[in-house]
């Protein structure tokens, strides 16, 4: 029996689309069951969303005031306890949420973790990127151990929903939870723009944009295209935009239909974040910039001249 447990990612009562991407990865393994675990202080709305995802067999909820924020030290023992009820796999998205908690679960279970699964050849054979995506390694995990893995969300489309109505079950986990870790606050930039990780279009700016003020030109173009905004590390380091906009090896790994890299040179650490994009457009004044080696459409020139022209032409 292959039974997969997926850890739901959610914030402010909403399920993150990374969870439905994990379901697609889980389906690739062809298991007997795919259950979703929702840890929360008030899990009902999130559980109802998860129950609709096609392929989900059952949704388990654990209600506890201590689960009001996703603290890894608090979540991990509960996940490990549920996993011990006959699950063969525990999957979480390879987002900051999943990266934080999944290794704790693996350690508590005494097993290795497969990070950033991009393909499952069978229930215990996976492909994952290493060296900033410059090599793909195939790893084999022991079949007699629980497999803990994080799913590279850019590699899997979100499973559809609507036709499914999985049962929702309340679970109790009798584990002691630590109090040594306390949530203080989450500073979230308010934005009406599409979410960077799930947007169909993304416009990113790099160091070439030059300043925080100049970045308005990127935001404007993004709004015209209904796109999310991203950035290179250099742009984030220089303070042009907040860190949650960083795309790349150590930022977000994304797969939009259209990615526009503006004033970005194309360092490998950046490119690893956009390898799965449908079409990559590069605008750069340096015709030799490495970004042009992988761009589907390239345009050489000064972004401050080209972007207004582009907006005109749209």
């Amino acid at each position, binding site marked *: 029996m292959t039974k997969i447990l997926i850890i739901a990612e959610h914030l402010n009562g909403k399920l993150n689309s990374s969870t439905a991407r994990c379901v697609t990865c889980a389906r690739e393994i062809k298991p007997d069951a795919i259950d979703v675990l929702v840890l929360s202080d008030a899990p009902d709305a999130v559980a109802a969303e998860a129950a609709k995802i096609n392929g989900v067999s059952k949704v388990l909820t654990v209600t506890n005031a201590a689960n009001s924020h996703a603290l890894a030290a608090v979540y991990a023992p509960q996940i490990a306890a549920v996993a011990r009820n006959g699950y063969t796999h525990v999957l979480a998205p390879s987002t*900051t949420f999943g990266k934080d908690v999944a290794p704790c679960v693996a350690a508590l279970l005494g097993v*290795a973790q497969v990070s950033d699964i991009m393909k499952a050849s069978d229930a215990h054979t996976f492909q994952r990127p290493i060296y900033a995506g410059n090599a793909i390694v195939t790893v*084999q*995990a022991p079949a007699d151990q629980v497999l803990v893995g994080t799913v590279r969300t850019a590699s899997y489309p979100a499973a559809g929903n609507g036709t499914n109505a999985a049962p929702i079950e309340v679970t109790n986990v009798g584990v002691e939870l630590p109090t040594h870790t306390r*949530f203080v606050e*989450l*500073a979230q930039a308010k934005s009406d723009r599409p979410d960077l990780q799930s947007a169909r279009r993304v416009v990113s700016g790099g160091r070439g944009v030059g300043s925080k003020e100049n970045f308005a030109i990127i935001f404007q173009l993004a709004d015209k295209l209904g796109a999310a905004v991203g950035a290179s590390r250099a742009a984030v380091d220089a303070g042009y935009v907040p860190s949650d906009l960083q795309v790349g090896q*150590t930022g977000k790994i994304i797969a939009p239909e259209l990615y526009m890299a503006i004033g970005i040179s194309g360092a490998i650490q950046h490119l690893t974040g956009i390898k799965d994009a449908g079409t990559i457009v590069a605008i750069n004044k340096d015709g030799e910039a490495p970004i042009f080696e992988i761009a589907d*459409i390239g345009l050489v020139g000064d972004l401050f001249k080209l972007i207004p022209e582009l907006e005109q032409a749209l």
Partner: protein
Amino acid sequence: MKILVGYKRVVDFNVRIQVKPDGSGVVTDGVKLSANPFDDIALEEALRLREKGITTEVVVATIGPADCQAHLRNGLAMGANRAIHVVTSDAIQPLTAARTLLKLIEKEQPQIVILGKQAIDDDCNQTGQMLAALWNRPQATFASRVEVTGNAARVTREVDAGLETIEVDLPAVITTDLRLNEPRFIKLPDIMKAKSKPLETIEFASLGIASGDHLKATSYAPPPKRSRGVMVKDAAELVAALKTKGLL
């Protein structure tokens, strides 16, 4: 107070790694090796906490082959007080690294353990979290700001939704993100001084650790290649090309 820093040696971030033609691994012979960039940030943060008087001793630790000594001397030259070298010729996986670091914690009793959020060779992003779970102590991963007051640390974390701040009781594990600080450069006199700083070697086998290297790498392949597309000459042509692809 003492701080333990994980200090791994990896292929330098500037090296463009190549997969061996037979798919048995990646070419690492003769390539430049450096400290994992996140571990340099970890060490820098520890040194700053010492400069603020919060800690008195910074210990760097690496688990790696015999020729890692020069790498540890770099950490000493940067400013660490002592180094510990756990010697093993095998490339170990995160669970084994975490179990090994736990042994060092038992021996050294640090109040803070700082690791990188990920090693840029395996890109696992696991060791710090595994260590915290095994140690049964708090973790503050992906840190971009650390403030230590008394018996607790307030850590700001770079998360997908923005910046999260948590408070953790000490001892605790912290893992670093890129913007926590900018590591200092090593000065020549410090390289000389580092030569006489204590460097302890421990045979991995002597620690009696159950191996957590459960994953077997069966083959390596280069990533699917994206090739160079078309160049357009102006904004109008770009719009036309996007329309042809059905993207507008």
